[in-house]
């Protein structure tokens, strides 16, 4: 690809910038009126029925963190899968030993009860 092929991206970015800045600039022009409807949260949506700034349960964070840890292993598994045919047994054994350590971690997490949703 030539550098000029990326021109559409630049045009897109420029257009986005113009629209965004334009709206900002227009809002400064002329007088603005405040009324009750404008001040509502979610101007064009429905009213929130529960407190919006509610805290999540801490278990949510725990599960989310565990998800990230186990999810990111894919970054290694996918490349190995791509070259498995050429790299052969070496790649497979490496991957399996890696997976083994991940399973050890999983067993530990499980036994410690971190997977239970309380």
């Amino acid at each position, binding site marked *: 690809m030539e550098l000029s092929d990326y021109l559409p991206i630049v045009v897109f970015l420029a257009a986005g910038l113009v629209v965004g800045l334009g709206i900002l600039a227009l809002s400064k022009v002329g007088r603005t009126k405040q009324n009750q409807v404008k001040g509502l949260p979610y101007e064009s949506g429905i009213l929130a029925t529960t407190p919006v700034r509610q805290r999540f349960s801490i278990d949510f964070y725990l599960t989310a963190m565990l998800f990230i840890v186990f999810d990111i292993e894919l970054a290694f598994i996918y490349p190995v899968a791509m070259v498995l045919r050429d790299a052969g047994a070496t790649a497979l054994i490496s991957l399996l030993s890696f997976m083994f350590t991940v399973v050890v971690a999983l*067993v*530990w997490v499980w036994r410690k009860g971190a997977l239970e949703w309380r």
Partner: protein
Amino acid sequence: MNVVPALPLMIVAGGACVALLASAGPGGRVRRDGPFWAGAATLIAAAVMSLVLWGDRQEALGGGYRADRFSMLLNLVFLAAAFCALLFSVREPAGVDRRGEYISLLLTSTAGMMLVAGAGDLIALFLGIEILSVALYVLCALEVWRERSLEAGLKYLIVGAVGSSFFLYGLAFLFGASGSVKLSVIGENLSVASFTDEPLLLVAMALIVTGLAFKASAVPFHMWTPDVYEGAPTPITAFMATATKVAALAAFLRIFGGALTDLVDTWQVAIGVVAAASVIVGNVGALVQRNFKRLLAYSSIAQAGYLLIGVAAGTLQGAESVLYYLIAYTAMTLAAFAVIIIREREVEDGEMVDALAGYGRARPVVGVVATVAMLSLAGFPPLSGFIGKFLLFGSAAEQGLWWLAVIGAVGSVVSVAYYLRVLRVMWFGTPAHGGEPRKLLTIPAPVLITAVTAAVAVVGFGLGASLLMDVCRDAAAALLAA
């Protein structure tokens, strides 16, 4: 694929898995004692394997790991430090409640250090640094009921991660300047073409020095050290102060002493300035500390400075002095921390220098251990600390770096003041509440044995210096071996 040279590394990593599984085991004895024995057996097995592999370079893991005399010698240092930390942790609060996690993380961190010492390419180097750091972040925070401990962990994590980013960015530029991640190829590529003026390479070296200075707690990136050392559980502080410093210096030697050795003129002054600043800041900071852990933290900043003086020399002689001093430093620092660990269990404020008032008279054995450690850290002959400093400053002076040698020597003289202050309090001080030091409990045998062994090692390394120097010379030569 040849995995044999990487066996020590794999044994330790496997041991970490076993310890973790044991802690989640079927309860009872396995859960209580399993991790400890798994950890001890792992460390011993890895040490034996390292001795077996002592010899010329063997590559493993596609050249990512190099088992040579350099990495095997440092393996032994890491394993010894981990073993001491393991013994220090017997009946330690953090060690009791979460024994499996504690020991597993200790082993993981050790494996990371071993990977750093034997790194054959930049990826392994970065990975090793990260494995050791990430495990240590958690270890620092493991006493979750203590807010200080948690804050130490969080602080260490943020500062450490920033350091890692600098280091990584430097490695990326080093890769960009040389076109390879293999340390040996980088050396060749850069020495063939005269790349010395290439801005990319200069930026790379500056970033790498910055990143590693974070890890070695050298000035100007030392600010985290006293807080983290103070907040972390003391056995972990002892492990951090010794093994992490050894690993960071190993990385310095691998990159600057090994791969970039031909560009010594370019990086010599930069590392020299960092070294001099560390010596000054560390020693001045330690003078006013009343907390023994903080005092040792500042002292360790100064020690990092002494060690970097040897790196700045950029010669084989410099590298072997660094290795010798690393070994001596590990022994004397472990001995010093053992004193805190023992006292800390007896009284609430055991980490304060004043809590040791009259302690030497009440417990002569601990007193002697502390005396040996402090005198060696201050650099009194014939202890190993003196010989190490003598070699380090000598190697710098030989390269015409007189200013560095002088700053190092003056720093050591200043350091005598605060090291001897500890000893004065210990032997001649009177406890605040009169008479005897408060509450003397029985010292757990493993802790006492470790403390005495470390002190004996400090003396032994001094008396047998020529023998140890021969070993270090072989190890340093492996850095440059093709």
